[in-house]
């Protein structure tokens, strides 16, 4: 059996009155792409933050490469996992380039000075998300979609092993949703890397994720490979809404009736 990048054992997480998950166990192996689905308020973001070490679990263990999360230093953890936020503060006081460059922080030396290599990595990340030419723009003046791509570029510059993404398709146009998810999947499909994404769109999850975790928001959860989990019955159970499976041009879609 391969050594999991992230091992979750009997994890229980609560926030307020919501039991996000109870006794959740799963292994995230290198090369996998996980999707987290669930109704509004089920605690998907909270679970993502818990996996990233930003929210304390009530019980259970989270291990990165068999090491407990709490034993890993902040900077080392920032090289192991990177996060994309959904509702984090919108203040970006610097230029787009400076903001993306700040993703390099966990890789810098003690004095925190960027090397020419770091500048190169940031510039390439900006080009990868298609924002080249806007490097000197004040990040606050970017549109919602541009800002989302900037944050994706920041994550690419950070280059962690595990990407924990909250709604990566947020604010993006339909074509950009596909372009960005494809890009992220390609980047994190490499050796020793993996991806976990919270998604609202079940069809995007089915298209890009090989594993799914369904969070009901009452402590019940289901996890496994996408073909096992993404059934009519399960999706109906999750959202309490009738759905049907549509097959067209070799792909399967969930249609909300």
């Amino acid at each position, binding site marked *: 059996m391969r050594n999991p990048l992230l091992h979750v054992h009997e994890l229980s997480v609560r926030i307020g009155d919501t039991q996000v998950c109870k006794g959740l166990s799963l292994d995230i192996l290198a090369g996998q792409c996980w999707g987290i689905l669930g109704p509004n308020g089920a605690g998907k973001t909270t679970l993502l*933050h818990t996996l*990233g070490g*930003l929210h304390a679990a009530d019980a259970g263990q989270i291990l990165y490469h068999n090491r407990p999360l709490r034993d890993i230093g*902040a*900077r*080392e*953890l*920032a*090289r192991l*996992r*990177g*996060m994309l*936020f959904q509702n*984090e*503060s919108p*203040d*970006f*006081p*610097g*230029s787009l*380039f*400076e*903001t993306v*460059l*700040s*993703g390099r*922080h*966990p890789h*810098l030396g003690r004095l*925190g000075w*960027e090397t020419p290599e770091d*500048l190169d990595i940031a*510039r390439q990340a900006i080009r990868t998300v298609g924002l080249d030419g806007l*490097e000197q723009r004040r990040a606050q003046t970017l549109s919602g979609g541009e800002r989302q791509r900037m944050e994706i570029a920041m994550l690419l510059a*950070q280059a962690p092993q595990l990407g924990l993404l909250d709604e990566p398709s947020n604010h993006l146009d339909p074509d950009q949703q596909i372009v960005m998810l494809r890009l992220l999947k390609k980047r994190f499909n490499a050796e020793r890397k993996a991806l976990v994404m919270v998604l609202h769109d079940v069809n995007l999850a089915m298209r890009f994720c090989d594993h799914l975790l369904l969070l009901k928001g009452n402590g019940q959860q289901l996890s496994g490979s996408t073909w096992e989990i993404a059934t009519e019955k399960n999706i109906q159970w999750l959202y309490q809404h009738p759905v049907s499976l549509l097959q067209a041009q070799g792909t399967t879609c969930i249609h909300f009736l």
Partner: protein
Amino acid sequence: MHHPLRNKLSLLALLLALALTSLSISLMIGSVDIAPGELWPLLWQNDGGSHYRIIHELRLPRTVSAFAVGGVLALAGLLMQALLRNPLADPYILGVSGGAAVAVLGAMLMGLPFAWQAPMAFGGALASILLLFGLAHSGNWNTTRLLLTGVVLAAGWSALISFVLSLSPPVQLPGMLFWLMGDLSDALNPALPVAVLVLGLVLALWLAPALNLAQLGTARAASLGVRIRRLHMFVYLLASLLTAAAVSIAGAIGFVGLIAPHMLRLASGSDHRILIPGAVLLGGSLLVLADTAARTLIAPMQLPVGVLTALLGVPMFLYLLNRGIAGKTA
């Protein structure tokens, strides 16, 4: 593309030139004017004349103290603004100067000797720092709570100050008001403020990368490897201790800690690796110029320097604020 800070180094060079100019002006102007050509040799060579003594015994200690206190205040203001993520924060917003003032005015009222003033000020400031830390620390430490608790504490100190002032005999009032407005006429030992400035500058520069990330939001900074809670506590203690030191040397000098960091932000952006040294140079220069004016405008009488920093600071700040708002809507 080169490093984003490279274009900003010229700004630091400019500020260094401003600092040297203001230091020279302060050394040359006073009851006896000293010509520019005379200044440089006088700094290094004792010709046995009165000018040498004026420079070395009076002006140089005071000018260097003014520069260091101005630098410390600007640095403390910059740190408070970064900590509270509030552009209106200044070194005194959390009540550090209030605690110092109550202690000093209390000492004056009780007739304690003058030598007690600085230690009393530092003690009062320290008490206020620890009180606030204890209040905001219990339970959930966050900066909004810190700000609210601090502002309320400052209001409480302010009421106590008014109380002491109303009890004081009229003969003591001018001395108390001078202290409250900030005054450098007794700051004749520059070693302490310079040491505080150097130490504060080094620690702040060490924190600069983390401060840059903290601007992006707490969770994002944490996800990039900043221990944000620890950073907040450290910045709070550093900024407060710097303020306490400045207040105990020169009283509560207003506006330097508010306007110097703001002027720099407008000119150089948001990177603390430039903001920190820049704020020190600008704050130091501003206070040196204000103090020069304070001791020469109505010579032989001296004004409290805080009056001048406020008189300069209010219009400057309003101008910047309006320009900033106009810039944002444009």
